[in-house]
């Protein structure tokens, strides 16, 4: 796993350095402490601690009722979480791998996403779904998908995809406190990435706000998840030649169009770096919004960095071939800068 440190930033609040994994766990712990109606639901999240060890020791702290192991039954527990959210509690689901949305999609798209609307606003849906995405572990095609475009695309669902430890904590907490269904897409390759995280228990990151992770004047890179850190590293490595601004989109739906547009108005150049497949996707959405609002600020064709419409293969050389990286971001910058 990528074990680099995030760039140091000046934050106004007190912070502690921790990994993305620890930041998410801290968010879960704080929200379990804060609100008795919050509980965790998922496969092997209890004594086992979660297959990628995110829930860790929370079961020991909070017990069976609040850290609930489920049968291997994604449609069942996704549906139960939907019904529970509509009837007064605030479930936080761990969907072990985002690929498993496939077996629970009916409850996600026809129930969770539509209930409030179909019922004329007379149903609350305070449910959070955390799930892990991405290649890089040799987990092959059914455990490495990046599916957040489906969810961000589907009306009635909100989707966030943090690229830093602080965003991971703040967005997880905001998702749990939201009265809307929010999917938190964690990238499995950055669980070990370290960053400064505010320790204030009321720290949240508002859903729908991007963050400028590195300021620059020449090119804007809008990145998500693992590619945020890799884009910042790339930007530093070429800083003598080109001044790159890196934005962590953080929230995919709603998307902070304003921050992105303002940056492009300054730089005139845009790269969109996101691990999802390139066609009909997250990249296209960001590109469309920029051309709608900042077309006349563009000085060069917009570039996309993503997975070239393949599934994630198993063998390391194959996986490395299709997995987008900081190197791909550098090449994209060179094409336009």
């Amino acid at each position, binding site marked *: 796993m990528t074990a680099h440190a995030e760039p140091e930033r000046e934050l106004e609040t007190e912070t502690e350095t921790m990994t993305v994994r620890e930041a998410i766990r801290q968010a879960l712990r704080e929200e379990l402490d804060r609100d008795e109606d919050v509980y965790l639901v998922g496969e092997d999240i209890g004594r086992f601690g979660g297959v990628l060890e995110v829930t860790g020791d929370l079961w020991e702290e909070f017990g069976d009722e609040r850290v609930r192991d489920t049968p291997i039954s994604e449609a069942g527990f996704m549906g139960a979480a939907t019904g529970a959210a509509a009837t007064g509690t605030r479930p936080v689901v761990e969907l072990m791998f985002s690929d498993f949305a496939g077996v629970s999609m*009916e409850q996600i798209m026809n129930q969770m996403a539509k209930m409030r609307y179909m019922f004329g606003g007379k149903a609350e849906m305070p449910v959070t779904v955390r799930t892990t995405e991405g290649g890089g572990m040799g987990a092959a095609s059914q455990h490495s998908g990046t599916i957040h475009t489906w969810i961000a695309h589907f009306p009635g669902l909100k989707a966030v995809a943090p690229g830093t430890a602080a965003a991971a904590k703040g967005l997880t907490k905001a998702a749990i406190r939201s009265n809307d269904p929010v999917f938190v897409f964690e990238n499995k390759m950055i669980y070990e990435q370290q960053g400064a995280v505010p320790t204030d228990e009321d720290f949240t990151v508002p859903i729908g706000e991007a963050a400028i992770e590195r300021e620059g004047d020449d090119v804007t890179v809008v990145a998500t998840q693992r590619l945020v850190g890799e884009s910042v590293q790339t930007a530093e490595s070429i800083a003598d030649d080109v001044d790159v601004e890196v934005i962590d989109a953080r929230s995919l739906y709603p998307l902070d169009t304003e921050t992105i547009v303002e940056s492009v108005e300054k730089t005139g150049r845009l790269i969109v770096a996101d691990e999802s497949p390139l066609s009909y996707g997250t990249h296209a959405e960001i590109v469309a919004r920029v051309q709608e609002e900042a077309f006349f600020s563009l000085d060069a064709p917009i570039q996309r960095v993503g997975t070239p419409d393949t599934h994630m293969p198993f063998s390391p050389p194959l996986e490395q071939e299709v997995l987008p990286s900081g190197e791909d971001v550098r090449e994209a910058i060179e094409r336009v800068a």
Partner: protein
Amino acid sequence: MADFDIHSTAGRLEALRRMLTIRAFDEEAGDRFADGEIPGFVHLYIGEEAVGVGTCAALDPDDYIASTHRGHGHCIAKGLDPKYMMAELYGKAEGYCNGKGGSMHIADVDAGMLGANGIVGAGPPMATGAALSIDYQDRDQVAVGFLGDGAVAQGQVHEAINLASTWDLPAVFVVENNQYGEGTPVEKQHNVDNLSDTAQAYDIPGLTVDGMDITAVEEGVAEARERATAGEGPTLVEAETYRYRGHYEGDEEPYRDDAEIQRWKDRDPIDSFKERLIDRGELTEEEFDDLQAEVEAEIEAAVEYAQEADRPTPDEAYDDMFAEMPPEIERFATAARARPDGGERISDSRSSSAQSSDGGERSSSAHGSDDGRQGGDRR
């Protein structure tokens, strides 16, 4: 305690009234659909009244039910007001869902009605979830998931019952076996003699009751409710019943004949319950006729209310997507409100003169286009 106690005379008369209300509502809904007044799809509950009312007779008012696409009967059994139901069928702003749901999605979560559901088999996971909330917060309630015989073959139904039984949740699953999953008979969809046999897979009680007999249904569900509230987990109750109408209005029903339908009508749940009440001296023919007339007048009033109620304004299409509206939708809502026709509700009664002056254009837009509707005897 149920809001009507079927173990008392008054409660039995209320049960009879609800069954009559369901039948009158659905007969009227069928006619108004055929007239072209009600858009969309309509699935009628006629013939199955004893199952919905018998089930709700065994429930407390704050218990939950999760319904199916054939949900009108469940709504009325649970105590929803036919007036707002009919307004919903008409797509009016005053309907239960402000006109966003229609026949297949009527809901009133505050009244414990978690929604009719257009997806076969999607209700049981919802009931399991409501039971999870109840269990988690130690509330004295149960959640009932209604499902049809066809839904028993759905994977998510298995998952929902397995989860509820593994966690001993206070849920009851009521299978309305009306003999057909759409047009396919039950024996061609399942390999068990009774659908309640599937309960064995979860080590929970499974019982099959006569779904044409309201007291048999009430008894079965009451037993299930007692187990659920005692922390003993869910029960699967199969009620054998029959729908007199097609799967949907307009269904040509090539899969059955009149003789079969008549055999079930001979055991009509309303007729038989009425006879029993007369035999017990709790009801006279005259009193029944009065009750029937009252119910019919109520449904007639519901139709009038629905016909005259306000239509939603175009900008309301953007409401209720989220608790917190994202800018992506807000901009469309703002634009709609700024249009001359965007934000003003017009009731059909008040707009009748406007309709004559604009050639009835409003009427056709409010009722949707005609294509995509299913067959039927329409104008």
